[in-house]
């Protein structure tokens, strides 16, 4: 499915070096580690929002290292739910897929009847569910989750995580979760990758 070979990335310091990672169909991986160790940057590199300094990204046996994000078919959920407030919930979902069955998508994430809601009136948890539904409507080959539940309380976080796992399992969508929370990492997947902070760049 996804293979990362010898990936390196640095800004003012090395974030990761010679990193290898693979993700097979339907698999889930948790990425954890201290702040600034490059977890988010790695996700951004996989999504195509950042380029790797070195290394290759193979997706379904195709080298996508230099493929722009819109052509990779990888979904990404940011830490804060990114919704477009000039569109209602249905409008946001149709960005993921123009002829989307919005009602079913909302039902899947437990937001039945939310089609006409204004995005600014949604709670944090609801907004993240809409963002999840939209990302899934685009039928991504892989879903990347960058601490998507960190802004909600513990109880809601557990519920959202559980629901997300159920949906991913049902769809068979492979996913990588970045989190600081060990418990969340363990709940999400059996495979947990711990990233360490690299030495300063020479």
């Amino acid at each position, binding site marked *: 499915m996804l293979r990362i070979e010898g990936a390196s990335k640095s800004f003012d310091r090395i974030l990761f070096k010679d990193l290898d990672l693979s993700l097979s169909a339907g698999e889930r991986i948790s990425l954890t580690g201290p702040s600034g160790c490059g977890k988010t940057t790695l996700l951004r590199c996989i999504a195509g929002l950042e380029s790797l300094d070195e290394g290759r990204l193979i997706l379904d046996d195709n080298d996508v290292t230099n493929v722009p*994000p*819109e*052509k990779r078919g990888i979904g990404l959920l*940011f830490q804060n739910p*990114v919704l*477009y407030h000039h569109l209602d919930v249905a409008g946001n979902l149709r960005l*993921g897929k123009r002829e989307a069955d919005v009602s079913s998508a909302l039902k899947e994430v437990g937001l039945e009847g939310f089609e006409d809601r204004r995005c600014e009136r949604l709670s944090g948890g609801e907004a993240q569910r809409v963002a999840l539904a*939209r*990302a899934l409507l*685009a039928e991504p080959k892989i879903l990347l989750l960058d601490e998507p539940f960190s802004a909600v309380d513990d109880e809601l976080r557990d519920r959202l995580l559980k629901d997300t796992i159920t949906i991913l399992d049902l769809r068979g969508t492979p996913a990588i979760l970045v989190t600081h929370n060990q418990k969340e990492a363990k709940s999400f997947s059996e495979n947990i990758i711990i990233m360490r902070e690299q030495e300063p760049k020479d």
Partner: protein
Amino acid sequence: MVLIPALIFCLSPLIAVIRASLRVAERGTVISHRWTLDGWQSAISGDYAYLSIIDGLLNSLGYAALTLVIALPLGWSLSSGIHLLEKRGSHWAKPLDILTMLPLAISGVMLGLGILLGIIRISPVFFTMWWMPAVPHIMLATPFVVRLLLPAMRRQDPALIETAQVLALSRWHILTKIRIPLLRGPLIVAGIIAIAMSMGEFGASWILVRTGAWDTLPVLVDQLMARPGFDPLVKPTAMAAASLLMFTTLVLFLLAERFRADGDGGMF
């Protein structure tokens, strides 16, 4: 304490113009004035100039529309380009940013003169092109468009565009469905400012307006003011033209204020 003198300072010239448009001098042994709409009537009928103020207003609006149609996309493109260079950490971002401000560094008259000399070198045929006076308007309005759009683009959460990219939206759809709607407010303000800049521009227009048929409102005011003042209706007519220009730009600025987001100071 400061508000009253500030209001007097800002409003008194405007009130003086309106007042002067409504008063005609009567010469007798002592000069006296009477209140009348004669100045407005002669301004509308165009008795003292090549054009009436309505024709002048239509000319001004025509040039303003042309300015809007060109300056707004041009300013958008420049702002997007500068913003993109900034995001990439390019050293060219700052020079390009400064370059867009250059037309503001010289006066309108100099700009008009430069364009005049430039078109003589290219082809004198351009003298007969009615759109020539719009060129400096576009050059002067574009920096303002950039100053309004660039900070708005900088303020925008990059995740909004990145999410759209990840959702596989094409560049066209990102522009039309995301970027333009999200920057609707600053775009409307920039458009209104571009129109207002064009409406009020005098120096370059004065140089480049080659026939009375192209007269804009500010040029018309100047022409009326330049007429011999022995006819008591000349000054009120000029002031009526000035009042109309003032009202038009005032309405435009009020409209701009209506669409300006709270705390949106731009970069002036």
